[in-house]
């Protein structure tokens, strides 16, 4: 269980303090898949980074399973069970897919073990396990490998920052299946996804709307979805098709 308690985050923007997150409180209970949505620039990704420890709040506290982790490092939080999938996965020259998955598990694993995680994200393990995590991989491939590293970590809280960004429609279909699978096997852990996609919102146990750094609404999808449909916070799948084909909204 994760709790954000009165969290604020300010940055220095051209000499004046700009508040990205304002007095934000939220509880993400165990066994739930929670999706955070809201307009661009509203602070969603910043929330994800605050949870992973990449940014530190200027005010407020963050608790994981009752323990105050506000001052804990990224490494500590990872060891305590937080997994984080980047919106734009990082490339590494020379580091192979197997290396990343092995590091994520934190133990010596066999090739066969590592391949299972790749299979889970719909990649043919044999073709990828020895590939370098470099520019030779497409955006969609990288994204799936990124998700495989989070699966391999077996986190008690998995955070995904816009997993649909930069991937093609076919991969997107696969992605939904991966999240549905994670939801089924959730067992005492929780999943937090930052997303605009209606189809991801549809598999949420709970939806949280963030606007201007504040909590604007929260509830089940039945409660929240009607107010979101047709806005940028819930983009239907077909609009994505148009974007892929013609680049137009």
């Amino acid at each position: 269980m994760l709790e954000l308690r009165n969290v604020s985050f300010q940055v220095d923007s051209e000499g004046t303090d700009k508040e990205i997150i304002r007095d934000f409180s939220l509880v993400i209970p165990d066994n739930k898949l929670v999706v955070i949505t809201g307009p661009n620039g509203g602070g969603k990704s910043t929330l994800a980074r605050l949870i992973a420890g990449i940014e530190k709040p200027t005010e407020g506290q963050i608790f994981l399973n009752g323990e105050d982790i506000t001052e804990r490092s990224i490494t500590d939080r990872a060891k305590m069970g937080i997994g984080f999938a980047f919106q734009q996965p990082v490339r590494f020259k020379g580091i192979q897919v197997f290396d990343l998955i092995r590091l994520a598990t934190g133990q010596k694993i066999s090739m066969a073990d590592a391949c299972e995680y790749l299979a889970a994200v719909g990649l043919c393990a044999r073709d990828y396990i020895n590939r370098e995590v470099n520019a030779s991989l497409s955006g969609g491939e990288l994204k799936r490998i990124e998700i495989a590293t989070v699966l391999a970590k077996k986190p008690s809280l998995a955070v995904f920052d816009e997993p649909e960004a930069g991937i093609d429609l076919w991969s997107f279909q696969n992605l939904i299946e991966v999240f549905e699978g994670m939801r089924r096997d959730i067992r005492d852990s929780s999943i937090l996804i930052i997303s605009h996609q209606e189809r991801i919102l549809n598999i949420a146990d709970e939806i949280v709307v963030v606007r201007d750094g504040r909590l604007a609404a929260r509830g089940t999808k039945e409660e929240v979805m009607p107010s979101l449909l047709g806005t940028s916070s819930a983009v239907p799948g077909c609009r994505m098709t148009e974007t892929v084909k013609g680049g137009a909204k």
Partner: protein
Amino acid sequence: MIKVQLDEIQKRLLREVADLHSVPEGAFNIRSNGASAGRQSTANIDIIPRPAGDGLEVRIKPGTKNESVHIPVVMTKTGLSEVVYNDFYIGEGADVTIVAGCGIDNCGPKDSEHDGIHRFYVGKGAKVKYVEKHYGSGTGTGKRILNPGTEVYLEENAVAEMEMVQIKGVDDTERTTTAELAAGARLVVRERLMTHGQQRAISKYVVHMNGDGATADVVSRSVARDDSHQKFDAVLVGNAACSGHTECDSIIMDNGRILAVPGLEANNVDAALVHEAAIGKIAGDQIIKLMTLGLTEQEAEEQIINGFLK
């Protein structure tokens, strides 16, 4: 079986530079503290010492396939300085692997230096894979110095693949590699280098592509840590319808400094030459990603460097 007498330090150096745990299979010469400690020729590979004792002539018969030559050098005496000349004649159509390498353990106050001058004459259609590792250890104040000179002459359709590695412990290196390529010949160089402390490493390449269809690919990956300094200077000269690529990809850390000087010279309208050079510190995102997997910042850096130099 030829007996080779080596002490524990010498054995450790051999493991580092040549992955050798015992006397190698096939042809070999082990040079220890300025003299040969063991030598073996085979039916197809003749190793002949130079009369002055300052090197070898290695003759590989045409058509020799899947054989290897090991010529490691280990030095454990402080204050030893030597220049060694090794000439390799690789017969037409042969396909062989040559493993060289030098390990210096200097526990004394005087500098130890080994300058290996290697010349490769690779016959028509022959292929040679050359692996050279450098390693230094020891706690003495004397420097460990290696200045390798390599000359490669590739006849028509000959291929040389060269892997040069220097990861640890060599205080001062000036490496010069020159190559002349005839038509259809191919040169591939993969250099990996890491310097630390006050070390200095210079690596120079001059590759002449003289025949149509010649190709050269010279790639260096390096890491400069602490106060170390590196210079990478690679010149490709296209004198025919050829293609060449050179790349210097470097990570700097601490107060490390790197100067990359790629040079291209096209003397033929059909010469296609490319160079790439990139120097920078480890990207912050890379460290953060590995930290989100539970690694400390230092562990993340080590993994990134290990991968980069793999």
